[in-house]
């Protein structure tokens, strides 16, 4: 699939999102549920701020020593008989993965949830190589059945669908005849997927965090599908973004705690798996174990002002509190990474060409920054993007540029600023009183008044009032109204 999920323009996608009542109902109730559970469960942690600071520190330390920990991890995997492949591009990663599949003569590949596998378009590459790829995460499986509908959330990929829509997909694609009761839907999916698990030749997973000190990968799931995918097939391939690593189990403990609580409001998810290779079938792990570490633009972010974006542990807490996401849904972002983190990350990974609106799709309310368990200053990074868009990329509109230059001049020249100020009430009243015959006026005011009225600004500006008052009219300003 790749990062980009739509060829529609940003505003077309937003329009579609806003008009999709089913999706909006599903998204707002999911946000309320997830956020409610999160706040309840973070309270019992004591000082949540201390935990956030510790987590931020762990992530920053790891990123600053990323090469060291990745090498340590790779060495430790190799020592245990596993294989690590560093892939700079999606093509390199897919080539390695399809080669493993060919060597194993694999027909059926069972996948656990992995955002980075979506990012590199792995399924398509494997299918091209003649393999059948089956998503085993329930949400991902629903989307796969529904003609590869893209994910709209990084933790709950089918968040935009309600149970009736899921029932319909099951009915059309798999002949399901039962009700839309979640338990029945889940039971059906379980039966269908169980058969697939037993026949799979290779299991592919993502990786929540690699543990450098022991060459292990960890997987955090609720459905148990990742554990099946790594135990039934003899071969396991884990794909991971290069930043998803911790030094030791001790840091993993902290981050998994933060991840589960922030993502789904659980103390721990049902399954937390630590996996190392077990060649010869001696231990519990897979006999043939491959880890593909993917760069795909990440190393270019290291050392820049955007580095903190790589602290992300993909919990989606920012998405779950975002008021913009609430109304437009995940697909409006046009990226597999939606919401505030998506608006920051997508242009970094793919450039501004297709994604230059994303940094503006935020009121900068900073709910995301407050929610982030590893303290990524998300709204500040959005402002940095805007700065790069206008200063480096020169993608700001001409009108905006002229207005802002005027602003810069006006705000540093008080008499000019005052003059501008005097014009505002005049202009506003023309629009407010409808003398323009419905919306002539400077751009922003015209747009503003499409959906809102302007306040009544009749009377003196404050500075005029204050001056008069000092002149003796301390509370005699009732004449203001008449004066204009």
């Amino acid at each position: 699939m790749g990062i980009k999920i739509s060829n529609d323009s940003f505003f077309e996608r937003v329009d579609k999102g806003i008009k999709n009542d089913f999706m909006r109902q599903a998204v707002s109730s999911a946000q309320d549920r997830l956020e409610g559970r999160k706040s309840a469960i973070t309270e019992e942690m004591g000082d949540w701020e201390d935990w956030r600071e510790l987590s931020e520190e762990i992530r920053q330390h790891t990123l600053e020593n990323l090469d060291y920990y990745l090498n340590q991890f790779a060495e430790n995997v190799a020592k245990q008989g596993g294989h690590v492949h560093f892939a700079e591009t999606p093509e390199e990663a897919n080539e390695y993965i399809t080669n493993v599949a060919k060597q194993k003569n694999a027909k059926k590949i069972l996948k656990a949830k992995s955002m980075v596998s979506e990012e590199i378009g792995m399924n398509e590459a494997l299918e091209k190589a003649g393999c059948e790829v089956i998503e085993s995460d329930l949400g991902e499986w629903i989307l796969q059945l529904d003609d590869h509908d893209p994910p709209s959330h990084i933790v709950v990929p089918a968040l935009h669908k309600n149970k009736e829509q899921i029932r319909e997909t099951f009915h059309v694609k798999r002949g399901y005849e039962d009700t839309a009761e979640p338990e029945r839907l889940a039971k059906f999916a379980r039966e269908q997927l169980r058969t697939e698990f037993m026949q799979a030749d290779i299991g592919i997973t993502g990786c929540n965090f690699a543990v450098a000190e022991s060459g292990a990968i960890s997987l955090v799931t609720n459905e148990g599908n990742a554990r099946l995918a790594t135990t039934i097939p003899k071969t396991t391939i884990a794909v991971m973004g290069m930043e998803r690593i911790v030094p030791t189990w001790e840091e993993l403990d902290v981050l998994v705690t933060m991840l589960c609580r922030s993502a789904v409001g659980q103390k721990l998810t049902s399954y937390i798996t630590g996996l190392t290779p077990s060649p010869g079938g001696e231990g519990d792990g897979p006999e043939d174990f491959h880890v593909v570490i993917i760069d795909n633009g990440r190393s270019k972010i290291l050392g820049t002002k955007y580095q903190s974006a790589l602290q992300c542990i993909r919990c989606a807490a920012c998405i779950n509190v975002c008021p913009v996401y609430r109304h437009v849904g995940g697909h409006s972002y046009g990226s597999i990474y939606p919401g505030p983190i998506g608006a920051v990350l997508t242009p970094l990974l793919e450039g501004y060409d297709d994604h230059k609106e994303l940094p503006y799709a935020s009121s900068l309310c900073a709910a995301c920054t407050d929610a982030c368990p590893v303290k990524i200053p998300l709204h500040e990074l959005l402002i940095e993007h805007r700065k790069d868009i206008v200063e480096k990329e020169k993608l700001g509109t001409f009108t905006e540029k002229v207005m802002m230059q005027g602003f810069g001049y006006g705000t540093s020249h008080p008499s000019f600023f005052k003059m501008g100020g005097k014009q505002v009430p005049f202009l506003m009243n023309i629009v407010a009183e409808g003398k323009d015959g419905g919306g002539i006026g400077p751009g922003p005011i015209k747009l503003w008044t499409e959906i809102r009225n302007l306040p009544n600004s009749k009377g003196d500006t404050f500075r005029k009032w204050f001056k008069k008052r000092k002149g003796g009219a301390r509370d005699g300003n009732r004449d203001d109204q008449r004066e204009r």
Partner: protein
Amino acid sequence: MKVSLFITCIGDVVYSSRVGRSVVEVLERAGCEVVFPEKQTCCGQPAFNSGYHKEAKKAAKHFIRTFEHAEAVVAPSGSCAGMVKEYPHLLVDEPSWHDRARKLADKTYEFTQFLVDVLNITDIGAYFPKRVTYHTSCHMTRIMKVTEPPVKLLENVEGITFDTLPYKEQCCGFGGTFSVKMLAISEQMVDDKVKHIVDTKAEVLVGSDLGCLMNIGGRLERLGIDVEVMHIAEVLNQRQETGESVGN
């Protein structure tokens, strides 16, 4: 205490003197001397948030020059006061300016924060026998970290009925240029806010940020919903003797 008032652009011209005079009168009742530095312009936030940092720096430096000798700077808007707190970061590459910015940021306050945290006043002797709800603005809460002061002040207003706004932490959809650049999204956000306000059955929506109030108030009016919108200073300036402030 001598207070230098930063009235903000919206407070100066958009609401005419309606809000500003209440701010002045309440501060004076609290025993302050209010001065208004005539040379003040804008805090620079519109440029800063839009990525025009060169222009924002110009505004910031002018602001620093205008206000740096003040004893305390007070603004009737959490967002604009929050922008001043941003100056040290904006001017980080210019050491002398950075230092001046830091000193200024330390003595810049949002209006209710100043009353409660600096002057230790939670009851200003206001009387307002109406049912109100309060809009918690984002920058005041998340950037200024001011949450308690406005609520404390409102709770101590005689005769008032105060209802907490459902989803109070959710943005109203203003966001400066966001309100016009992303009009369709902003509309959905403000409509949600309006719905929650109507749910409280409040007669008056009170807030501490003029941008938010302009947005919510403008939408309420457009939809023909009869809820009055007031800045918190206007409520605090209502007294029993007259029943209304001199400004109304």
